[in-house]
């Protein structure tokens, strides 16, 4: 599907990408093209490099060779101004959910996106979390609850590109449907996610399989 697109329709691409861990582990990635406004899912076995690919796109891991391109230019850290990223497990310190959700909106890059407590509560309700969660400490919540809070932050940041690492791995069927509705439907965002989950993979416009 991506092969039919012109280069202008591709937001992120990578070519001959190799990432090395330690002295004897190496991951070679196939050519990857992420089309604008579409949902691309990367699937593959554990250890095949799905999370590594997302981190490489964000510049958190430096590949030993190959290039990552963002909007036809070599990707650099400026991509982070246009992204929201959900890591596999969200550990953001000792704070309460309300403080943690407010934090990204204190950064200069996000100051124009005014988000009040009610907007945070509303998105959490839409993701199936009650208002009481808002006052709790993040460390006291389950992995699934933390995952939904991460998805809520990604939604509220309203960035054009979402990078989601196993976004439904700890969610039940109902929560998966809610997450999919909020993040994928009626939106022109570019979504690059990794997943093992057949439900989430079904929502993809474009699937890339890693060996």
């Amino acid at each position, binding site marked *: 599907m991506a092969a039919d697109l012109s280069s202008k329709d591709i937001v992120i691409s990578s070519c001959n990408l190799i990432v090395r861990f330690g002295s004897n582990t190496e991951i070679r990635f196939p050519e990857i093209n992420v089309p604008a406004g579409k949902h691309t899912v990367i699937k593959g076995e554990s250890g095949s490099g799905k999370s590594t690919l997302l981190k490489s796109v964000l510049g958190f891991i430096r590949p030993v060779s190959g290039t990552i391109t963002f909007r036809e230019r070599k990707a650099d850290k400026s991509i982070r101004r246009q992204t929201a990223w959900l890591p596999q497990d969200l550990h953001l310190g000792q704070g309460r959910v309300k403080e943690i959700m407010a934090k990204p909106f204190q*950064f200069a890059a996000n100051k124009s996106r005014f988000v009040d407590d009610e907007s945070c509560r509303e998105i959490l309700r839409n993701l199936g979390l009650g208002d009481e969660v808002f006052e709790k400490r993040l460390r006291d919540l389950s992995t699934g609850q933390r995952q939904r809070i991460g998805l809520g932050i990604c939604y509220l940041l309203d960035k054009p590109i979402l990078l989601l690492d196993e976004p439904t791995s700890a969610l039940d069927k109902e929560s998966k449907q809610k997450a999919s509705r909020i993040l994928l439907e009626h939106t022109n965002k570019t979504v690059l996610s990794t997943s093992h989950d057949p439900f989430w993979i079904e929502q993809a416009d474009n699937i890339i399989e890693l060996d």
Partner: protein
Amino acid sequence: MEIIDLSWWQLGLSFLILLLPAYILWKYRTGLNKKLLTASLRMVLQLLFVGYYLEYLFEYDNPWINTAWIIVMVAVADFATIDRSDLRRRWSLLVPIFFSTFLGIIVIDLFFLQAVIQLPTLLMAQYTIPITGMVLGNCLRSNVIGINAFYYSLSDHKERYQFYLACGASRNEALQPFISEALQKSANPTLASMATIGLVSLPGMMTGQILSGSSPLIAIKYQIMIMVAIFSGTILSVYLGLVFTNKMVFESTDMLDESILKK
């Protein structure tokens, strides 16, 4: 009131009491007795050296020589900070920590010695050397706590840092929670000793002054001043240490160069 001098044999006698902790440490196989021996020997040799050196320092009482001595003390503290923080001796750490500690000490010295005590001559040895030594000793302890906490926490919780970066935070914005935690950890011991001073402990400077015949009221005033100097000096040097090292140990992608860590 005249001070009772200690003869060398009396000083030697004081070491006998070490047999008690040495026996406890041996009984529970802590393996610390070798360290105790080395530490005791180092303490005696270093203080003997300093004792003789200070005799000359006080005799000449020259601000340039005093500054040179401060530079030597800061340089030793610089290596000790990096070693005890479990970091590697890299120029990218040695240089910024040296300058941050030196700057912290000089600001505190000039303020307290020249503006508060109002010494008749610049950096008078009798005041400069002991006060600098006390502030620097505490700066070393706080730097070790703060710098170790900062870099190891950043390495252990890197996804938190990366999450903030991926949300569009600048490096400084993403580091803010880690700097806050490091400052809290390094400030806590000094705050605790400030809160209990006089009740739980009689600090060394005050004890020394009283032993040498000063009035307890003068000793207390100096002690209050030195605690303020220590707290300000430690926070200043930890903060500057983090700010200066942060300019040297991050890659262009904002990732920490983890080869500075010993783990």
